[in-house]
C-alpha cells in the first residue's frame, strides 16, 4: 500500500522535511549509484571484444540510463512543471514510530549474527511486546517462547531446514 499523503495531527503544525528535498537527495543517490555502475563496467571492459559485447557492456548502459534518470528526477523534483512537492515527507511523530521499529530491528539482526535466529527472535519479540506494546513480562515471555518453539519445530524438525545458530551456538544442547 503506497500512501504519500500525510495526515495532519491535531494541534500544532506538521513539521518535517519537505518531500521535494528528500526526492532530490534520493535522486542524487540514484545518480551516484549510476556513476558507480558506470565505473565498475568500464573496469570490466565496456566495449566490444572479439566475442561480442564485453562483460561490462550491458551494465555500462544500465548505469548510463540510471544516471540520466536520476538527473531527470533531480530536475523534476526541484524545477519541475508541477512545482516543488512541499508536502511533508515524514513528520517527527511518524519518524519516531518508524525508527521505533527500524532500530530495534537493526539491533536484532546484529544479535542474530552472534546468538542465532531463535534466541535473538525470542528476546526481540519479548522486548517489542513489553516496550512498544506495553504487555506484561509474563505474557510476552510466553508468547515469544511459543512462537519460537513453533518455528523451531517447523524448521528444524519438520522441514529440516537448519536456521542460523550464530557464532556462539547456544542451542547446541538440543542436538540440532
Amino acid at each position, binding site marked *: *500500500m*503506497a*500512501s*504519500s499523503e500525510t*495526515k495532519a495531527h491535531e494541534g500544532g503544525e506538521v513539521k518535517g522535511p519537505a518531500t521535494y528535498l*528528500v*526526492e532530490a537527495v*534520493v535522486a542524487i543517490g*540514484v545518480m551516484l*549509484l549510476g556513476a*558507480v555502475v558506470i565505473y*565498475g*563496467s568500464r573496469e*570490466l571492459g565496456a566495449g566490444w571484444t572479439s566475442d*561480442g*559485447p564485453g*562483460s*561490462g*557492456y*550491458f*551494465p555500462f548502459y*544500465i*548505469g548510463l*540510463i*540510471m544516471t540520466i*534518470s*536520476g538527473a*531527470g*528526477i533531480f530536475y*523534476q523534483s526541484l524545477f519541475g512543471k508541477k512545482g516543488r512537492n512541499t508536502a511533508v*515527507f*515524514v513528520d517527527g511523530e*511518524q519518524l519516531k*514510530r*518508524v525508527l*521505533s*521499529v*527500524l532500530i530495534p*530491528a*537493526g539491533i*536484532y*539482526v546484529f544479535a*542474530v549474527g552472534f546468538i542465532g*535466529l531463535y534466541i535473538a*527472535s525470542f528476546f*526481540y*519479540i519479548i522486548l*517489542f*511486546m513489553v516496550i512498544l*506494546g*506495553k*504487555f506484561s513480562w509474563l505474557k510476552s515471555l510466553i*508468547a515469544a517462547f511459543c*512462537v519460537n518453539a513453533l*518455528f523451531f519445530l517447523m524448521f528444524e524438525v519438520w*522441514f*529440516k*531446514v537448519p*536456521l*542460523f545458530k550464530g557464532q556462539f551456538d547456544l542451542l547446541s544442547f538440543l542436538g540440532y
Partner: protein
Amino acid sequence: MDELNALFHGFAVVLTPMNTLLMVVGIVLGVLIGVLPGLGGANGVAILLPLTFTMTPTSAIIMLSCIYWGALFGGAITSILFNIPGEPWSVATTFDGYPMAQQGRAGEALTAAFTSSFIGAFVAVVMITFMAPLVAKFALKFGPPEFFAVYLLTFCSFVGMGKGSPFKILASMTIGFALASVGMDTVTGQLRLTFGWLELMRGFDFLIAVIGLFGIGEILLSMEEGLAFSGKHAKIDSKIVLATWKKLPQYWVTSIRSSLVGIWMGITPGGATPASFMSYGLAKKMSKTGHKFGTGELEGVIAPETAAHAAGTSALLPMLALGIPGSPTAAVLLGGLLIWGLQPGPLLFVEQKDFVWGLIASMYLGNLVGLIVVLTTVPLFASILRIPFSIIAPVIIVICAIGAYTVHNAMLDIWFMLLFGIAGYLFKKLDYPLAPLVLALVLGDKAEDAFRQSMLISQGEVGVMFSNLLVGSITSLALILLFWPLISKALDKIRPPKKDEFEADRPVD
C-alpha cells in the same frame, strides 16, 4: 482434444493425498499472508520458497500457487472490513466494499468479492488450459533476438503504461538490472561490480530484495500511522451467502467484461492492480447504477475483484509459456522454477508434462478450495487482525529474517533484507514503482544473455532486432510503448484528453 486429456492427467497428479494437503495448507497460508500487512503475495511466496526445496517441484509449485490464490482472496478481506487494502490490487475493492461493511452488509460484500474472484480466476484458468499449449508452440519460433525483443517489450511497457514519472520507472528498473548484474558473469565468468567484496560473488538474490522491499518496507510504512487497527465485524452465514449468490447472476455482463479486462492485463505486463482499476472504471461508466458507485454498490465490488483475479491468474500464462512473468508474484514463482532447474518456455510443456498440467489442474482445484476456505473462515481471519500489532509486527519481522536467511544460508542476506526494507520504505513514499525493480532483478540476467547471444549471432549488428517479421513487430511495439508518454502528449494536443478520474487514487505498484 489433447488439452483435455492432459488436463485430466494433471488432475490425477494433483489429487494425491500429499498434494491435496499441500493445497489446503497453501491456501490457508495464502489467505493469512494476504490479510497480514507486510506479508504480501510476492513476499509470502518468496519467504516460503526455500521451504519447498525438500519437495518435488510439482508439489512445491502447487503449494506456492495456492499461497498465491490465497493471498488474492485474502487481500479482499482487509479491504472490505478494515478499509486497508491487503494487496495493491485490492485498493479498488475498498471503494465500495468498505461502505458496504459500514452499512452492515459486510457478509454480502465478502461473498460477492470471493465469488467474483473465483469466477475471474476460473475463466482465466480455462483460457490458460487452451491457450498455453498454443502459445508454447508459437514460442518455439523464438530465438535469442525474439526473446530479447519480448523482454524489451515487457520493460518498455512499464515505462509507457506506468503511472507516475517515467524517470522514476526507469530508475527503478535500472537499479534492478544493476543489482542483477552484480556477481559472476554467466558468459565470461568474471566477477562484476563486486569491488573486491567476496561476499557479493553470489550477487543479490531477488528473494531477499522482495522480502526486504515488500515486507520490511511495508511494515515500516504501516508503522507511520501507529499501531492501531480497528475494523468492522463480519459474519458469513449460509443465508447471506445464498442470498448474495442469487443477486450475482444479474451482473453477468460485468463479470464477463471484467474477466476479459483481467485476462488481457494479466498477460501483458500490466498485472492485477491496473486491471482492477480499469475494470472498476469501466463498470462505473457502463452500469445503470454507475453514479452510485462508491456508496456501497455490489457491482463495485464484483468488477475489480473479478478483474484482479483473472489478471493474477493469467499472469502465469506468459510465465509458463515464455518465461516472462506478468506480475511480481509471478516473477517470484518464475525464480522458483529456475531454482528447481525447470526452464519455463515451450520445452516445459514437452519435457515436464506432469509439472505443467499438475499446476494447471491445481489452479482449478485451488480456486475452488480457496473459495470454500475463505467463505467458512472469514471471522477467524478478521479476528487475527484484532491481535495487537505489537505482537504481529515483530513476528512478521522474524518471519522475514528467517525467510531471508533460508535462501542461501547467509547471515549477510538478512542485513541486505534490512537495507532493502529501508529502500522499499523510501521508494514507496516517493512513488518509485517497485514492480519494475523486481522484474528487472529476476529477468536481468536472462535479458542480458538474450541480448549478448543475439549480438553474437549477428556479429554486432543491432539490426538483428528487425531481421524478421516476428522480431521486428515486437521490437517496434516495444519502442512505441517506450516513447508512449511523448507520443500521447503529442496526440493530446490534437484531441482533448480524457481525464482519468482514478489518477489520484491509483497506487504506484
